[in-house]
């Protein structure tokens, strides 16, 4: 697994990840990564774009919902063992809804506060940092988690900043004073791809 940088070492760089440069054809084995050398060199620390962040969010949804369902199943199983009667959870139950939102809050708050990246973000190689590149910290992590639903509640308009703003910050980023940056070593990945990319097409 590629190593990720510590939050404190990252400095967000405004702008896009770079202009894609096609690899000239017919120059020996081609890497399978679609990124060029120029792109990989300066990727770390740049503001992450919509696709990376959205994919990370989808992964997080799957993970958090999956774990939540596991917890409910474990609780149901424990109840059936201890009391002899199993619990049937319903989506319409207020308790389940409250527990779900509480769980989601804990999930994001814990990961953003401690490491700046949720499992989905870790997978996609992006990380939440302070807008100055410092680590998120408890206060900003908490604030970001509280402001996160706001971006949804405004009919998703809170996310427009990722598409339109120069520094790709959503509404909850602006409120919490955070930014999301790439934290994976693309250059190392490209070297790995070159090393094993013999005969493959990009």
């Amino acid at each position, binding site marked *: 697994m590629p190593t990720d940088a510590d939050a404190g070492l990252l400095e967000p760089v405004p702008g896009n*990840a770079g202009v894609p440069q096609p690899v000239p054809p017919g120059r020996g084995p081609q890497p399978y990564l679609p990124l060029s050398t120029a792109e990989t060199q300066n990727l770390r620390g740049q503001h992450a774009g919509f696709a*990376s962040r959205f994919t990370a969010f989808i992964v997080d949804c799957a993970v958090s919902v999956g774990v939540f369902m596991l917890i409910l199943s474990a609780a149901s199983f424990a109840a059936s063992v201890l009391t002899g009667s199993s619990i049937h959870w319903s989506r319409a139950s207020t308790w389940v809804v409250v527990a779900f939102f509480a769980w989601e809050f804990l999930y994001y708050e814990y990961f953003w506060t401690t490491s700046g990246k949720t499992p989905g973000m870790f997978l996609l190689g992006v990380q939440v940092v302070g807008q100055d590149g410092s680590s998120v910290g408890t206060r900003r992590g908490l604030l970001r988690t509280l402001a996160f639903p706001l971006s949804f509640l405004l009919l998703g308009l809170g996310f427009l900043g990722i598409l339109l703003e120069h520094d790709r910050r959503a509404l909850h980023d602006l409120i919490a004073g955070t930014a999301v940056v790439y934290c994976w070593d693309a250059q190392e990945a490209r070297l790995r791809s070159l090393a094993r990319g013999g005969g493959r097409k990009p």
Partner: protein
Amino acid sequence: MESIAQGVAQRVIDLVIEALDMNALIARIDLNIVLSRVDLDHLVHRIDLNQVLEQVDLNQIVDRIDMNKLLAQVDINQIVSRIDVESLVKNTDLGAIVVSSSGTLATEAVDLGRSHAVSMDDTIARWASRIRRNHAGRAQPPELPSTPEEP
């Protein structure tokens, strides 16, 4: 008789050499003139460098080198920047070493996913940038240049 003559000559030469002040003699020699008369190329051609190097104890020489001082004068960044790392990885076993040290199927999949996501980020950013430009254009149309139309 001959041996006596040789002995005398030897003795005379020794006495002359002892009497000579070699330092004073060397000081009087203009080495530049001497060296200008020497065909150094011819001299170098006659030297068997392999034989000379065989007699040199390289370990002893290396031991006498202050590596820290030497490396302090070397600009490593400049050297590294001159290396084509990609062709090095492609053409040597270094690639296999890189793969064996860190490569797994999972890593490959993660690298691939991440790089595709970054490519999509770029594509989306370009679309957004184009839309923004168009929007700005509608709000305030740019002035057309009054250059004559080319045939």
